[in-house]
């Protein structure tokens, strides 16, 4: 039996399989789920997740045949403080966001927004044409448009499945 690992890396692969009637597989599945649920909790429990970079922008990635578009919510930055670089199929996004109130005239009653420097790498599904990449920062949202290289669409070939 193939389902031997206790901590499953891909829960869906096991979840989707049939054989509901096998009590061992059912138990295995429950164990996996238990571990997954626990692992899912960990990032929230560990203090060091955000300690290095107190500010980690979240990104959305979307694509069509021609381009990949990455958007990030980066409110309160200046366009010049955002660094973007592309190496093969990895996009690196970095920058620094500083606090507005450095003078000690008053005091904070509530702090929810985050400041500091950040850097993160975003893997892309394809190698993109870095030369033709464009970025725009508007209303606190960064949009990076990465054209897929010409011929990428041509490389995709539909494969016929023959009947016997």
């Amino acid at each position, binding site marked *: 039996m193939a389902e031997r690992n206790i901590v499953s890396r891909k829960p869906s692969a096991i979840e989707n399989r049939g054989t509901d009637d096998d009590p061992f597989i059912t138990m295995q599945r429950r164990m996996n789920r238990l571990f997954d649920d626990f692992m899912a909790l960990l990032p*929230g429990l560990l*203090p060091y*997740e*955000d300690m290095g970079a*107190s*500010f*980690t*922008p*979240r*990104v*959305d*990635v*979307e*694509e*069509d045949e021609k381009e*990949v*578009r990455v958007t990030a*919510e*980066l*409110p*309160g*930055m*200046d366009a010049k403080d955002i660094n973007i670089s592309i190496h093969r199929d990895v996009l690196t996004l970095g920058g620094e966001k500083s606090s*507005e*109130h450095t003078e000690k*005239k*008053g*005091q*904070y*009653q*509530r*702090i*929810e*927004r*985050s400041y500091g420097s950040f850097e993160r790498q975003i893997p892309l*599904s394809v190698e993109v044409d870095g030369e033709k990449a464009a970025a725009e*920062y508007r*209303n*606190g*949202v960064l949009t990076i448009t990465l054209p897929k290289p010409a011929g990428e669409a041509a490389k995709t070939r539909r494969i016929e499945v023959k009947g016997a």
Partner: protein
Amino acid sequence: MDKDTSLDTRKQETTLAEGERTRASRAYLPRTDIYETSEEILLTADIPGADESRVDITLEKNILTINARVDAGWFENRRLTYQEYGLGDFQRSFALSGEIDREKIEAVVRNGVLTLHLPKTPAAKSRKVAVKAG
């Protein structure tokens, strides 16, 4: 180590307790800093994706409500490869104390950040009583 919400960069959705919405989009609570000086209360809220024309600020009795509409329309029909943040409006209410000079409230939106200046009334400023050492 403080268990501070600022460590969690996830956007927090508004709950039904804040009233049901008339728009079909989601709504998130904008992350807000509140800074107080002797002159004013300064409220800074992250509302990425909204510009000044899409922000409504209302003050009813002592409840200040911020509503920023984010148009998801520029996300055309593309295939989302992965998503770490959801798109939606920003909405949040704060209860103000009576010491705010309502006529002089000022709001500025820049780079997805709303800054609200809430000046204190002269009465509130002068109400401070000096305490002498006995």
